[in-house]
């Protein structure tokens, strides 16, 4: 029901005198029920790509097809979760979930809406906070609400832009587990696109990892994740296979970086210091250092 086909997709940011190409001729096919991660350093166009898929941004070229139909703006078949939660702070936890339902599933009665909202608030473990306002909750709790809202509307496609980027390691791991178990428990699995720059997160969650590179944002490489589901964190990460695979991904990062760095040295002479390359470097180094 929800294949995504991206064809020659380019997205530009126009300033008055010049335009900047954030995504350049991206081609990507995602199967129904597939969990795909977009992995890449800061500035390589992940957010731009995912918000274009959601319909929040108009491409400057190319098309996003969903089930063969080109999209024209946002739609009831997609929901999105952002890094900074983006809850409506003036609505309680339950109201936030209900508001999403009211928009995307207007056919529901008030009672049904309330029941579904409560069901999902419970699923993310926040029943006792259902009448609290988001700003009184921790970051992890707020992100649970955002996940509840995105899942409750039951769109076949779920888009997530670094949803766990602002959380500490432990909360992050528990929300990854929560997301996977909710995703797997559905009879009709959602198609998920998940943006991250954390290698381990990408491996643990996805069926396939799409590695992107910046300047302009392109797909560098696509890699299928060889681990079977259900995945149990400790069981996977301790294996030799995992270490080898993880290295493969990190190497792909390096190769992408080399190409960019080469690409960029020419520019650097004329354009001066490039913050994109610097953050790319430090990001990669810390990813390696964070491993064993």
């Amino acid at each position: 029901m929800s294949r995504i086909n991206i064809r020659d997709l380019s997205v530009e940011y126009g300033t008055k005198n010049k335009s900047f190409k954030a995504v350049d001729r991206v081609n990507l096919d995602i199967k129904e029920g597939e969990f795909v991660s977009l992995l890449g350093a800061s500035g390589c166009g992940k957010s731009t790509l995912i918000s274009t898929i959601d319909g929040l941004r108009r491409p400057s070229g190319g098309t996003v097809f969903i089930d063969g139909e080109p999209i024209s703006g946002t739609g009831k078949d997609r929901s999105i979760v952002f890094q900074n939660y983006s809850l409506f702070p003036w609505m309680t936890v339950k109201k936030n979930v209900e508001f999403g339902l009211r928009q995307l599933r207007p056919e529901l009665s008030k009672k049904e809406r309330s029941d579904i909202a409560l069901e999902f608030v419970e699923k993310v473990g926040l029943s006792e906070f259902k009448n609290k306002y988001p700003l009184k909750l921790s970051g992890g709790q707020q992100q649970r609400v955002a996940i509840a809202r995105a899942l409750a509307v039951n769109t076949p496609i779920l888009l997530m832009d670094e949803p766990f980027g602002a959380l500490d390691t432990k909360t992050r791991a528990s929300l990854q587990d929560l997301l996977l178990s909710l995703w797997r428990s559905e009879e009709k699995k959602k198609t998920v696109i998940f943006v991250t720059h954390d290698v381990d997160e990408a491996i643990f969650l996805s069926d396939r990892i799409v590695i992107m590179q910046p300047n302009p944002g392109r797909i560098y490489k696509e890699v299928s994740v060889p681990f079977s589901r259900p995945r149990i964190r400790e069981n996977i990460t301790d294996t030799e296979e995992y270490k080898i695979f993880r290295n493969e991904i990190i190497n792909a990062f390096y190769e992408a970086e080399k190409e960019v760095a080469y690409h960029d040295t020419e520019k650097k002479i004329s354009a001066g210091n490039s913050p994109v390359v610097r953050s790319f470097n430090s990001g990669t180094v810390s990813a390696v250092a964070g491993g064993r």
Partner: protein
Amino acid sequence: MFAVLILVQFLPSRAEDNEHKFYLIAAASAAELVFLLLSAFSSKKDFLRDFGNILSVIFFVFTAWTILAPKTLILDPLIFPAPGEVLWQFTADIDKLSQGAASSLKTVFSGYIYALVLGIPMGVILGSFKNIRSSATYVVNFAGAIPPIVFVPYSIALLPSFDVVSKFIIFLSAYWPIMKGTIAGVSSVEKGILDTARSLSVRTGSLLLNVIIPSALPNIFAGAAQGLGVSFLMLTSAEMIGGQSGIGYYVQYYAKFADYPRVILGIIILGIIICLISVLSAGLQKYFLRWRNT
């Protein structure tokens, strides 16, 4: 504090007219009694503490006043009459005062309501459309910078009565802060929140009602509170310049006859009214912005 106040009343006085001090004693006793009853039966600790504090401050002021004016004559008793005198005047003038207060409130709110009713929608429009906003900025900044009181002569020439002039000036002075607050709130809705709303395909009407206005509410409240403050300022000025009614007029009128108990009484009543309104508006704000993290 209560005991001190009562004691002070019985000190030998150097002024003649202290026959009204029993009004003060009665009022203070009544207040103290209410407080004691409340402490005995109510369990709202915060409220009791605040109430007790306010009462102590009032008693302290009256004590100081009693000592300075009628007892020792450090202050001229003609200009600073005994507190009992003022209280007596209150009981005598209660009709006049409540009429004055009603008239003042009516004037201030009829101006203020128009400012809300026009200022908020205008602010929403200017806040939502960047094009209109950027071309209107200079007009808004220029017109908003002019102190509304300078329009009084013009308004008197153009408008049918001084009452209408007062309302218009109040409207004008509250309008700008309200509109500016609304613009600031509406134009600064967080991008993630707007994107989320767009992603949920929220329609324009619902977007305005459920997303943009609630998000702008803190700024709207700030503008409205500022507007209310200026409104009272303008109200009193207008009443004292050329009004025929209201508390400001009462003060101005009796000042001409050097009737200082009434002047002080008017000032106190005005203060109380403004305090009550601020408490009310702070309460409304606290309720409507209860979702904020403060």
